[in-house]
């Protein structure tokens, strides 16, 4: 038994990988992972059902989804107006109300009989648009343009416009980048909120199965924490890859008009790459705190109790990052970048607005340093509070916060 075919202790990274591999495969090959993958489907199904019910209600109520204007003019005028409308619509795209020629009559009678949104009477030179104020006021400009075209006759050819795209974005375009930044930030927040909470209950299994002592005797507690985080991050990335693939397929099937966000400052491939890296950082940062808090809970019920304030904390961070995004270069934005928990969100929004890449390298190093620090603090706290090892924590507030933690049972 004494022959040593191996020597030396495992490094923290190597030990973390042993733990991570076990956790990752255990979760990935469990039945529950399938339901985890299906998770985002449920809100989509609920949303679809709600939309369907809404349409049914609208339909039952006789609401007309597509605005139709009845043209109750003299036949020649009505024909001229309809031709002008079709000609303009072919060039301007959607946006003009549909026309339907009806026999001239009182507008209220036409609306009642033909179930239309508004009624156009008079002549192209003096058109009269009748209907509810909120509708007809919005259409008056379009109707005036159509009437003018009806008087002018056939459309003349329009000159072709040559496109000359520039790489640099004028500052005025930042507002457009803001939409992309907001979208990226929201997506990052939703994914982090959905997935980071999973680590809260991560060490409960070890404590319930009494495995924690085996782990603590063999490898440093930091390695256990890192291993757990890496495993859950891996599981999350697998989930995101699956959802991303499904979502991408849907977008491709639906056509290019589904997502019409302005090009981010760093370009789409770089933004997606940074999004993955910032997700990892946001996950590790929040996860290390959640893991530490969760590790002090003895039961799943305690973990559930902790979940609510944790979720509120995440929402607050998102608000901070969202606010900072609208104030580029301000002290608020710099503060949000420096504060580790809001840093990934703020920096991802910045990537959509500013093309420089070096700040991202610096931010990632900063965030990685915080991950290492938080894991060290968390594992130290776990050793002191749960394993009852090391100097006592003197901060009374921390004791109160974590007062329900129980030490690992010592037989004697």
């Amino acid at each position, binding site marked *: 038994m*004494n022959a040593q075919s191996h020597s030396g202790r495992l490094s923290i990274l190597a030990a973390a990988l042993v733990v991570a591999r076990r956790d990752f495969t255990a979760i990935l090959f469990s039945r529950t992972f399938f339901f985890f993958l299906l998770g985002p489907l449920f809100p989509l199904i609920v949303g679809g059902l709600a939309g369907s019910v809404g349409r049914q209600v609208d339909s039952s109520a006789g609401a007309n989804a597509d605005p139709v204007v009845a043209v109750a003019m003299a036949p020649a005028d009505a024909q001229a107006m309809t031709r002008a409308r079709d000609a303009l619509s072919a060039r301007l795209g959607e946006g003009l109300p549909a026309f339907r020629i009806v026999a001239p009559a009182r507008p209220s009678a036409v609306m009642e009989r033909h179930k239309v949104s508004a009624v156009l009477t008079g002549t192209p030179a003096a058109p009269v648009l009748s209907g509810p104020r909120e509708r007809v006021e919005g259409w008056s400009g379009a109707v005036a343009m159509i009437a003018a075209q009806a008087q002018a006759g056939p459309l003349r050819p329009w000159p072709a416009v040559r496109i000359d795209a520039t790489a640099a974005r004028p500052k005025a375009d930042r507002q457009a980048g803001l939409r992309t930044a907001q979208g990226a930030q929201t997506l990052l927040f939703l994914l982090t909120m959905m997935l980071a909470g999973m680590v809260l209950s991560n060490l409960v299994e070890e404590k319930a199965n009494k*495995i924690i002592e085996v782990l603590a005797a063999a490898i440093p507690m930091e390695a256990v924490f890192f291993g757990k985080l890496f495993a859950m991050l891996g599981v999350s990335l697998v989930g995101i890859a699956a959802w991303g693939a499904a979502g991408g397929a849907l977008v491709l099937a639906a056509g290019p008009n589904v997502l019409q966000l302005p090009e981010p400052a760093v370009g789409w491939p770089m933004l997606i790459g940074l999004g993955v890296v910032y997700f990892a950082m946001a996950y590790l940062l929040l996860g290390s705190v959640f893991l530490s808090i969760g590790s002090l809970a003895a039961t799943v019920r305690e973990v559930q109790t902790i979940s609510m304030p944790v979720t509120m904390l995440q929402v607050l961070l998102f608000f901070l990052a969202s606010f900072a995004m609208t104030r580029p270069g301000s002290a608020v934005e710099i503060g949000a970048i420096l504060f580790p928990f809001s840093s990934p969100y703020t920096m991802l929004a910045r990537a959509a607005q500013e093309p420089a890449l070096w700040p991202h390298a610096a931010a990632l190093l900063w965030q990685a340093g915080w991950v290492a620090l938080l894991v060290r603090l968390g594992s130290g706290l776990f050793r002191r509070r749960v394993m009852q090892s090391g100097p006592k924590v003197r901060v009374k507030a921390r004791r109160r916060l974590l007062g329900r933690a129980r030490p690992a049972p010592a037989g004697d």
Partner: protein
Amino acid sequence: MDTHVGDPQETGNAAEGQVPLAIEARALVKRFDGFKAVDGVDLSVPQGSVYGILGPNGAGKTTTLRMLLGIIDPDSGYRRILGADRPHDLAHAIGYLPEERGLYPSMKATEAIAFLGALRGLPLKEGRRRAHDLLERHGLGYAAERQIRQLSKGMAQQVQILGTLVHQPRLVVFDEPFSGLDALNQGKLEVMMRDLAQQGTTVIFSTHVIAHAERLCDEVAIIAGGKVPFAGPVDVARDSIPAQVRLETRAGDGPWRAALPADAQREGQFWRFPLPDTGIEPLLRALIAGEAGILSLSIERAGLHDAFVAIAGAAAARALEQAKPEEAAR
């Protein structure tokens, strides 16, 4: 926290002519919320020996083992495991079976053993190969691909014991290894522990069942009330209390009764008392002169159980006496 009081050189690890020590601990102290769970424990475990830590429930056995393995740090004192101050530095050379057994229920037996080896630095592939070998050798080959949750408690415990040994450690620490095993498997474990020691592995285990220690151990430490009132060879422990004399006489009474020690007790037809310091001969002469009519007389050496009860009982009584003034002072 002072975990290094005393110089390791001064504590005499592997002094000339002595067996080198696998474990050396001096003045280990651990408090939990002001309560001293371990109070100045000294241990010297020779390499290649089977060493027992004996003590009643709550004596401080598990806490001592946890400190030795680096799971928890002592508040003060000094420990040295296989020559290293930090047990984690020698994780690959140490095997540990905690009192609270724990395996992942969804893991297969082979994977569980390989995982425990991997935590100690054994490559997974090699761990799986050895796991299969170990399971076959110990009659559990049929359970190799079964999940832990599908095994009985005793079988799961055997799997964990094999996982403790899969990386071929030089020091194995078992905390209450026999609890949860049936008599047959307890016997198998005893054989396994002897085999390990024969191959040069140091085996240290805690138990409150003295019979196991008496059969297995070269040396024992008795822990009571967080202190170690005795540490040394089993024979020395047994000799620490006097042998018992068992006497049967024909005469129920007579002048010979005056020769019996004052603490002699009657047990049916027999008298029982500790062997006098002067030996048996003067007593024999006095009994014969007093016409006791000796039918039988035997001298019984104390067992480890008797020694344990006497030593641990006395230590507990002392601890109680010491605690009274402290309690009153509070």
